[in-house]
């Protein structure tokens, strides 16, 4: 697919800026020496990886440096890079559907991470790939959420099912799946209301949507995407943990990577909770949601053009 790589790089250029420059400034062409550990540590902390994951990665890398005694600073960065990629390596294309029709996706997350926008982009891309998509407007709490999703639905050229403000979210999910089955749709995407993970009542409501989805169609939801804002710090780990326990999250959508934040907490989530990062949001356009690319992502954190 032409342009994908460029777009990814384009979207991530700014993520890379500063960091990449600094890496180049600090490491390029230099001999490795132990006082450079602190610079590496700083880069990882500033990318929001968190204490545990930074220690984990640096210990691994340290052990290898001890054994292999690399001469060049870049070689050490390479070793670190490999461990980071390993953490977030993923298998398969997130765009592939389950055997069952319709496949049901549910999109969850705390407030303001970009759930509705993500649903819109997913809908557009899946329809472009020839699938019949139906959206479920199960964010019945936020004012005008359904209107917002409707705009995305018409941009994407897909159908939307909703019952309006204040309706029962689980009932909307149920209706959407039934309607989609009747219309022989391929994919149902259910947009849910943003909620802070420490609000147990709201999380129970989400659990109910999840349960009812399974009742409307055995095996559903096939994917539960947790939308995580790349600017989020260590709280992202708690978010992921609670959403995982409540609705069995199957993958992370890391949004807003077109800013200067790196979303490094996603590495901590992958390591500690084994939830893979599957998508990355790199811009405002309909095409700016792409399958997660571990190498490109890690390079963006560490400065990709070291060997170029």
């Amino acid at each position: 697919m032409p342009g994908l790589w460029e777009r990814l790089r384009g979207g991530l250029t700014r993520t890379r800026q500063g960091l990449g420059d600094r890496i180049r400034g600090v490491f390029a062409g230099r001999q490795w020496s132990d006082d450079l550990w602190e610079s590496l540590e700083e880069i990882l902390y500033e990318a929001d990886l968190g204490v545990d994951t930074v220690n984990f990665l640096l210990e691994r890398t340290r052990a290898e440096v001890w054994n292999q005694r690399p001469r060049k600073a870049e070689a050490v960065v390479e070793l670190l890079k490999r461990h980071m990629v390993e953490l977030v390596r993923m298998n398969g294309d997130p765009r592939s559907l389950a055997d069952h029709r319709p496949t049901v996706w549910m999109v969850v997350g705390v407030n303001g991470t970009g759930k509705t926008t993500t649903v819109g982009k997913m809908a557009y891309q899946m329809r472009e790939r020839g699938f019949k998509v139906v959206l479920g407007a199960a964010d019945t709490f936020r004012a005008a959420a359904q209107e917002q999703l409707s705009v995305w639905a018409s941009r994407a050229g897909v159908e939307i099912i909703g019952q309006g403000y204040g309706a029962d979210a689980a009932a909307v999910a149920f209706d959407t799946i039934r309607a989609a089955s009747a219309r022989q749709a391929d994919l149902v995407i259910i947009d849910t209301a943003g909620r802070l993970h420490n609000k147990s009542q709201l999380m129970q409501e989400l659990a109910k949507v999840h349960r009812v989805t399974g009742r409307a169609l055995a095996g559903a939801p096939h994917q539960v995407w947790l939308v995580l804002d790349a600017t989020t710090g260590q709280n992202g780990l708690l978010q992921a943990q609670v959403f995982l326990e409540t609705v069995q999250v199957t993958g992370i959508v890391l949004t807003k990577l077109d800013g200067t934040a790196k979303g490094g907490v996603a590495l901590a989530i992958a390591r500690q909770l084994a939830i893979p990062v599957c998508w990355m949001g790199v811009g405002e356009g309909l095409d700016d949601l792409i399958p997660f690319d571990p190498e490109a992502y890690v390079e963006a954190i560490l400065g990709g053009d070291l060997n170029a």
Partner: protein
Amino acid sequence: MFDNLAGKLESAFRRLRKKGVLSAADVRDALREVRMALLEADVNFKVVREFLSKVEERAVGQTVLASLTPEQEVVRVVRDELSELMGGQPSRVTMASHPPTVIYLVGLQGAGKTTTAAKLAAMLRRQGRQPLLVAADVYRPAAYEQLATLGRQIDVPVYYNPGATPVELVEQGIERTHKLARDVMVVDTAGRLHIDQALMAELLAMHSKVPGHEILLTVDAATGQDAVRVTQSFHSQLPLTGVILTKLDGDARGGAALSIRAVTGLAIKLATNGEKLDAIETFQPDRIASRILGMGDVLSLIEKAEEALDHDETADLAERLEQGEFTLEDFRGMLQQVKRMGPLSKVMEMLPGMKGLGQLKDRVDDRSLVRTEAILSSMTVGERRRPSIIDGSRRLRIARGSGTSVQEVNRLLKQFREVQKMLRQVRGMRKGKRGFPKFPFPPMPEG
């Protein structure tokens, strides 16, 4: 996951104390725990480094080393430094001497600008002002509809004109403000990246056409290391006057607040902390210090308790306890007072060391309170005053009436008898001593 910092320091010092004498190096070692706590709380890496060097200067002084409880001394120094950095006194939103006051809300996407705009307008209205909201987010789909819906809920007019540019919208908005004789205009702007030059220029153009008395940056309390870059970048392009920290009702520790303050010196003026439109308050700088350190928000808890508890009732209850006359009727009153403080899980979050304890929170589910209350409410007044008359058939009736089981009713009665027994013992024991024993109420679900 987040152990209480004081606890961590205590164990660190316990290890050190085995050596006998504490040295400056030992204190430095202990400060590593502080560093971890700050980093885990999302305080910017560089800010942590500078902050710790300041703390070290003070902590390595004689007072800490000579203290019998060095861990508490260190915590005190850290907390003092934090409060000082955050700026002790709360800052207020300033109003123009000649109305209308113009307030811009700016920030990244998803920080909570639209909801906050409505909350701010509602707050101003409660203070007797006449706000007008301007929906200047022309990019996000249905942003106007969202603000219009919120405006209806809080009874504040919302200005919007489809097709107008954001600059035109504020110009027309200020005209409308004059026409409707409103005294504050709150402008909800589109979310934008701080590195998006075109959109940043647009904000500046709006501000130069209709100058804002307050330009408030809206920041999500869960923001990580990037908070520094975002704030610096906004601040260098726009004359920000302060910050609003949103989603403080989450369990993020809010280290971003410290980073922002340290790097830009901007005051955090307001905080939002709930889904409801009245969930906005003046930011309390001293309280975030404890929150960042994971030490709980005891001040807020005390304030809440004072707000919720009826003093006459409490005094009355204390007197009856004194005389050993505690009945189920009193207990029911106590429960209702506790409930007034809000969801139990929220109350618990304010206690030190309770953050992030998901499992515990589930055990102290509000539902167990609700069940206990249901059981109590299914009793007659006579039964509550003299629980001894509750026999088998009454138990069955109470269980049915409350939708619980006889076993649960039994458990409650048994716990109550134990408390009564304890009270009697305490009364017998006490001669002029003050203070009440710990109650095993409310009953926790077993498991």
